[in-house]
């Protein structure tokens, strides 16, 4: 397939969203090689704990072994082929069991029934061929575990470089310096291509139109019942109706490998709970350092092509492509270890409003994605525009490097497609650099 024909400098061909063939290649060349988020080590605190999820279309199991090490296996019994673990979290007492065989936590085949019958055959309990197959590479940063299905490719450190500061800030906000998954997982299915969701995450052009029904509904209640006051929940919903200047005044930062982040749309709150939290942080790291940590205030960070942390509300979205026109988004919430319980409760409140399948905000996003998917499937036009503020992005002089653009630029989208192009170009082996324009 000629990938080059699908990408122009500021437009992409609709086939990138609707072609089954392109989707198949993406599973191979992007999800089969890039560093993909698998889970957080707090999901498997003890030896024998496991977390089953997907890398692209591959079911994988992240486990904690006897010596505390983290392994990630393909979810497939190498003996007869059954899956060894259900989706989600679980615990096993030292052995994985499928209906046909048992495995040690390190993936070695422990036993099969009627072992006598395997004498004088090429079946061998100690042959790695009959052990659980490990994914090619596993790496973690501050508890966030990523894996690559390819032996070769970018080093994890290089891959993460641009957005490492977001992960640092995510954890530095905790008085203990660590975070833990808490409160369960929201799972939302979208009838659209996975890239449409990524494009939306840092797109500030859409809220005022897409979310009109929810911010108007919140304002109506506020005016009719509360004299214009906006409690926390309504404040979050109201934010989408901010005027154009608000959005263009934000900064967008874009980095190698398709990553980006947007500066925050909410100021750090200053209510009694926030002050109590600040005190808990300052008690551990000192007041100056606490202020420095909280001054890093970001909205969505994108770690392309698998996840998006929200550092100031402790949310973490994971994007799992299901098919060319189906995408699963999983939303995790984190406890800041050492912070007051009420802060975690506010994290849940935020997530109930914004990230639950019943969110009155997200539902309009999901609808619009599906409408894009339907429209792109017609012959009404081959190209999709990404022109907004093209050619105006500048190299960023700060230590993180990368490019910077105004808040309403489509820089993050163009940046994602530069990475997409690199991943998809067979045997390119080149570094994935966003070109300053």
């Amino acid at each position, binding site marked *: 397939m000629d990938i080059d024909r699908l990408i122009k400098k500021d437009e992409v061909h609709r086939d990138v969203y609707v072609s089954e063939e392109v989707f198949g290649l993406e599973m191979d060349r992007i999800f089969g090689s890039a560093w993909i988020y698998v889970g957080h080590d707090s999901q498997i605190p003890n030896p024998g704990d496991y977390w089953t999820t997907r890398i692209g279309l591959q079911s994988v199991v992240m486990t904690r072994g006897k010596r505390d090490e983290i392994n990630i296996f393909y979810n497939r019994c190498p003996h007869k082929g059954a899956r060894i673990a259900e989706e989600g979290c679980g615990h096993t007492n030292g052995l994985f069991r499928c209906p046909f065989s048992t495995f040690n936590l390190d993936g070695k085949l422990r036993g099969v029934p009627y072992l006598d019958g395997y004498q004088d055959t090429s079946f061998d309990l100690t042959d790695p061929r009959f052990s659980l197959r490990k994914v090619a590479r596993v790496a973690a940063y501050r508890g966030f575990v990523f894996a690559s299905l390819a032996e070769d490719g970018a080093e994890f450190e290089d891959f993460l470089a641009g957005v490492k500061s977001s992960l640092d800030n995510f954890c530095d906000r905790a008085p203990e310096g660590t975070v833990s998954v808490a409160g369960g997982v929201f799972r939302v299915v979208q009838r659209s291509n996975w890239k449409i969701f990524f494009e939306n995450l840092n797109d500030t052009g859409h809220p005022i139109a897409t979310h009109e029904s929810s911010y108007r509904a919140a304002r*109506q*209640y506020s005016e009719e*019942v509360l004299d214009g006051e906006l409690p926390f929940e309504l404040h979050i919903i109201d934010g989408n109706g901010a005027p154009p200047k608000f959005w263009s005044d934000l900064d967008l930062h874009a980095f190698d490998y398709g990553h980006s982040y947007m500066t925050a749309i909410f100021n750090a709150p200053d209510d009694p709970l926030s002050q109590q939290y600040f005190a808990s942080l300052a008690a551990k790291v000192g007041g100056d350092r606490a202020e420095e940590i909280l001054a890093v205030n970001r909205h969505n960070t994108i770690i392309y092509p698998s996840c998006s942390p929200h550092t100031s509300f402790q949310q973490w979205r994971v994007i799992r492509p299901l098919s060319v026109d189906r995408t699963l988004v999983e939303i995790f919430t984190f406890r800041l270890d050492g912070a007051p319980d009420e802060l975690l409760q506010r994290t849940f409140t935020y997530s109930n409003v914004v990230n639950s399948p*019943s969110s009155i905000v997200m539902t309009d996003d999901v609808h619009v994605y599906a409408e894009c998917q339907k429209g792109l499937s017609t012959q009404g036009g081959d190209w999709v525009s990404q022109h907004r503020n093209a050619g105006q992005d500048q190299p960023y002089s700060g230590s993180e490097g990368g490019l910077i653009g105004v808040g309403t630029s489509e820089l993050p989208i163009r940046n994602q497609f530069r990475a997409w192009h690199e991943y998809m170009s067979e045997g390119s082996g080149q570094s994935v650099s966003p070109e300053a324009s």
Partner: protein
Amino acid sequence: MTSVNPQPINSASDISYEMVCHFLYREARLLDQRKFTEWDNLFAEQGMYWIPLIEDQPDPINHLSLAYEDSMMRQVRINRLNHNRAWSQKPRSRTSHMVSAIVIEKICDETNRLVVGSAFQMAEWRSFGLRTFAGLYTHTLVVSDGHLKIGEKRVDLIDSGEAFEPIEVFI
């Protein structure tokens, strides 16, 4: 809508099984008729609408919930459902509730509360087709100013941990 008993209710023990059944049927019917504000008026002032995310979820505060809505959040949801730019409500949801197996589980005269369990199914038609929700309701009903009101409506979906397409109307 006529009430089964025109007499004011003084305490939880004044409430008959028939009154409870009628209350639950009426509640479901108001939702199916999209009379959301009338439905919301069935709630007591502090009444909550709760869809837990996990089975046997002990509380709505220390865990995520599919929904945990007070009067404010219910009314904002209603405002949105009635807004003409609610893109995902074109065409708008149509629902049909079936409520059954109604059991009065607890009556407490001191607090004037009843706990009522039931089973339900809700079919919903949307632009992407027909889908079904199924589960158990637990209504905590309170007697307030001579009326029966909802103190809490808990909706335990049998597939609460599943991946969902957006849920917009009340279940």
